[in-house]
């Protein structure tokens, strides 16, 4: 991604450099050449419509090239590839809490393998933050009350800056961290420790604890829709609209169940606003998502026994 942005950046540097050179040369040349001299009067020129059209239209077309190029780069940056590794990000004043789909939790540090697409599913617990990794030319505001997405693919192992780029209060400049990009083998080694089981497994547990299973059953008898295989699919709503069941849809359905009623169901679900933390929500979303993964009819429950997380690898493990 960095390459795409830099290419456009260099193109813009050249274009604007030429424009600057043009204007500056003309100004300096005219200023020197036509400095006031005794006996020589200024020559009055009214203007020239062809010239005006020329210097409106040519820049306009140059601008359109920049626009289109910029739009292409932007679209690519906004569209996570389908099979990305997923990381859930919860921002709060003033730290980053990151949780891998595989269950590893980190604070202010994110370990990723080189060459793999990583999708970030981000939300904030309080004010607006912004997830900014200059080396990846990637930035996305993290907004409370909803998910925003971003993705990147690191191409070189190393440690890169992670900044909060949206002003968020006193310790805004302390809300920094690092992205550690590792060789796949190292990454696998790192991943093997410190997990309390996949996020979807904790999601399944919460799903059971909150009693969601009583209505959202895996057959057609439930009072709520069967959630098997719905993720990523269009959902027909009771008012006739169709929406795609993405992360934000699942999130909204938990927090504001009345907003989008699935066709054929009654609005009986109570809201879980204030009852689940952002981390628990992420786990629930990961669980619902796992119900749609091919070959993964349900998550392998508690594949890893509940062990204390390795302090070196995952510094923060407590859900508040």
């Amino acid at each position, binding site marked *: 991604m960095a390459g795409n942005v830099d290419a456009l950046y260099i193109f813009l540097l050249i274009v604007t450099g030429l424009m600057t050179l043009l204007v500056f040369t003309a100004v300096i040349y005219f200023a020197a050449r036509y400095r006031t001299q005794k006996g020589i009067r200024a020559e009055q020129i009214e203007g020239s419509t062809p010239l005006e059209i020329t210097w409106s239209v040519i820049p306009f077309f140059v601008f359109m090239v920049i626009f289109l190029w910029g739009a292409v780069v932007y679209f690519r940056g906004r569209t996570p590839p389908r099979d990305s590794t997923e990381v859930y990000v919860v921002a709060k004043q003033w730290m980053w809490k990151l949780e891998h789909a595989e269950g590893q939790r980190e604070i202010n540090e994110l370990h990723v393998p080189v060459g793999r697409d990583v999708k970030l599913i981000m939300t904030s617990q309080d004010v607006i933050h912004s997830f900014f990794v200059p080396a990846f030319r990637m930035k996305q505001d993290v907004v409370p009350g909803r998910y925003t997405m971003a993705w990147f693919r690191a191409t070189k192992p190393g440690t890169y800056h992670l900044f909060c780029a949206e002003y968020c209060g006193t310790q805004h400049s302390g809300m920094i961290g690092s992205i550690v990009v590792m060789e796949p083998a190292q990454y696998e080694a790192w991943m093997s420790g410190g997990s309390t089981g996949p996020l979807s497994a904790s999601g399944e547990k919460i799903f059971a604890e909150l009693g969601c299973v009583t209505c959202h059953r895996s057959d057609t008898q439930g009072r709520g829709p069967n959630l098997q295989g719905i993720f990523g699919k269009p959902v027909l709503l009771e008012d006739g609209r169709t929406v795609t069941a993405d992360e934000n849809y699942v999130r909204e359905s938990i927090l*504001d169940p*009345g*907003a989008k*009623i699935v066709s054929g169901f*009654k*609005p*009986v679900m109570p*809201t879980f*606003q204030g009852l689940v933390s952002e981390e628990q929500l992420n786990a629930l979303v990961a669980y619902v998502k796992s119900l749609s993964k091919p070959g993964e009819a349900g998550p392998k429950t508690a594949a890893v026994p509940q062990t204390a997380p390795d302090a070196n690898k995952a510094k923060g493990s407590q859900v508040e």
Partner: protein
Amino acid sequence: MSDSQTASVSSAAHNPALLHHFATEEQQRDSASLGMWIFLSTEVMFFGGLFCAYLIYRLKYFGDFAAASQTLDWKLGATNTAVLICSSLTVVLAVWAAQQAKRAVLLGSLVLTLILGFAFLGIKSIEYAEKFEKHHVPGPTFQFDQKVPGHPDQQASPGHAQIYFALYFVMTGLHALHMIIGIGIFVWLLVTAWKGRLTPEYNTPMEIGGLYWHFVDIVWIYLFPLLYLIDLHK
């Protein structure tokens, strides 16, 4: 302020209302009228920000907005609409009377306008009082327990209803503030007219005061259907 300092322009001599920096009365009147129109443009954008917020949330939380809207009494809203429309008529009559030098009509229309203005505010305050009783005023005491119209089994979200009431109070409150200012202007106009200072030659204050009043009326013409009549058929 400094108009008494000079009388350099010849035509200024016979009209004390002509300010020194204008060449003619026509220039002065046209300036005042244009000034009021531009001020009203500002006012449109002032309310525009609120309408924008209202529009977005209404589309997003339509059912909850409908539920909240239906706790309002549309009959009172409609009455107030009629009251304001009548007051617009009396205002336009007052402008006409000032231009035609019909003193009795002028004074009568101004008094009627004021009565209608107060009637509007009276009805509005009855509505506001009801909101306080029902705990529909946004803030710590806010309570809302209504079903979404057309969905007898769906409880409307109190949070979203609170947004409706927040916008309701800001919009109608701002409108009421404009009404109060308008009443102030019209009291002043009544005094001016009583003293005989509004003449066919000089009635600019009446004209631009009228423009202001009509604008406030127009705002209400939009507020009424937007706030009171959501999904009323359900």
